């Protein structure tokens, strides 16, 4: 029997995860409602004027998205623990990275949907009108999404192995993500205020994405087999 290729395996696992999510809508519903709550709470906590909100919105958007991303990430592997799917996967000849990539892509799609739904909400609640070019926000959104999701998917696989599972994920993900978070917040703020070019921060985010994707792919097999 030949072992399945990386692409075929990734596609199959991704299709399975998306189908499950399409039927249950567990991750997206909990993320969306959670993000909505954070946005409303921030609005009460800071009560910003239009000018202020332009300056702080970058931070608010990404903190809200960071927190709600964790909600989705925690569900990533929990599903596979039941019926020992992970153990079955470990003994199968399928490449481990296919599993990781499929989970990563699935989370990427969930967070992208969340971003699409949240963006208009922010515009309405904080009366935002970006001064810089809008297409840059799209690039920042995609790069930032992957920056959170790639390490998040990886660390979620680590944290389900610990005693305090769901609490562990933010405890290890947030410290490592600080530079990425800083880059996405600063880049978004530069676009919203139009003061400076966000180019440096976009490059930093892109480099972060590349470096950590490679690190994750190199180390995932080790973590999957850690016993």
């Amino acid at each position, binding site marked *: 029997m030949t072992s399945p290729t990386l692409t075929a395996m990734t596609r199959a696992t991704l299709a399975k995860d998306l189908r499950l999510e399409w039927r249950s809508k567990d991750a997206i519903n909990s993320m969306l409602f959670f993000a909505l709550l954070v946005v409303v709470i921030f609005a009460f906590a800071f009560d910003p004027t239009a000018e202020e909100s332009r300056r702080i919105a970058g931070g608010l958007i990404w903190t809200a998205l960071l927190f709600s991303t964790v909600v989705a990430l925690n569900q990533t592997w929990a599903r596979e623990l039941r019926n020992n799917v992970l153990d079955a996967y470990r003994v199968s000849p399928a490449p481990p990275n296919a599993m990781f990539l499929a989970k990563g892509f699935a989370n990427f799609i969930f967070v992208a949907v969340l971003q699409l739904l949240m963006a208009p909400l922010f515009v309405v609640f904080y009366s935002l009108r970006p001064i810089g070019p809008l297409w840059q926000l799209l690039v920042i959104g995609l790069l930032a999404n992957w920056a959170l999701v790639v390490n998040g998917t990886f660390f979620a696989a680590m944290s389900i192995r610990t*005693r305090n599972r769901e609490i*562990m994920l933010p*405890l290890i993900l*947030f410290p*490592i993500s*600080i530079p990425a978070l800083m*880059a996405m917040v600063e880049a978004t703020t530069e676009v919203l205020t139009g003061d400076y070019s966000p180019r440096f921060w976009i490059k930093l985010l892109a480099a972060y994405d590349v470096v950590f994707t490679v690190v994750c792919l190199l180390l995932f097999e080790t973590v999957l087999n850690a016993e």
Partner: protein
Amino acid sequence: MKNAFVIFALATLALLAYGLYMALVVAPTEATMGDVQRIFYYHVPSAWAAFLCFGINAVASVWYLAKRGVKADAIALASAEVGVVFCSIVLLTGPIWARPVWGIWWTWDARLTSTLVLWLIYVAYLMLRRFSGSGRAPVLAATLAIFGFFDVPFVYLSIRIFRTQHPQPVMGGGENSGLDPVMARAFLWNMLAFTCYCLLVIWMRYRLQIAEQAVEQAHAERALGERA
């Protein structure tokens, strides 16, 4: 091995005592800052010791993932714990100095922020170790250490864009840089003393860890023997 440890411990104690004497008695009082500047003889060597520990931790983690030796893991754990302690000393002595000199306890400046982020990463590392079962902890922790290692350049780059308030390195800087020779001597003695001190504590913690592993092993073997 035991003798070497005792000799090294005594030498370290002597060095620390001499460093203290140099820093508090011999070194002249700084002209503008006064006596509070003397904290520098501990602040900078502690920072150096913390970075040394995190460096050792990164090397030991890679070594562990490559060879899976228990010794590499014991070194990684010992250096991470000692590094967090020294890093905490840096983060505590900094504000004590900054309050009278800058007028503020803390500022989100490049060096301060990077040190804080490094501290956060290694506290996360210790938490991960504590909450994972003894069989998995070494692998998971070593993996996180490698993430931390790759994170450092990004932390440094992103935070450097912020304005820097921390004093530039005094030695080897521009034209007006340079320490008074007596101050430099006191500083270098303390650097040496803290390096030895840091290695000594790692060594102690390492021996303790090896002993703990042996005890755990003995317990496991006895439990197996009883069942059989």
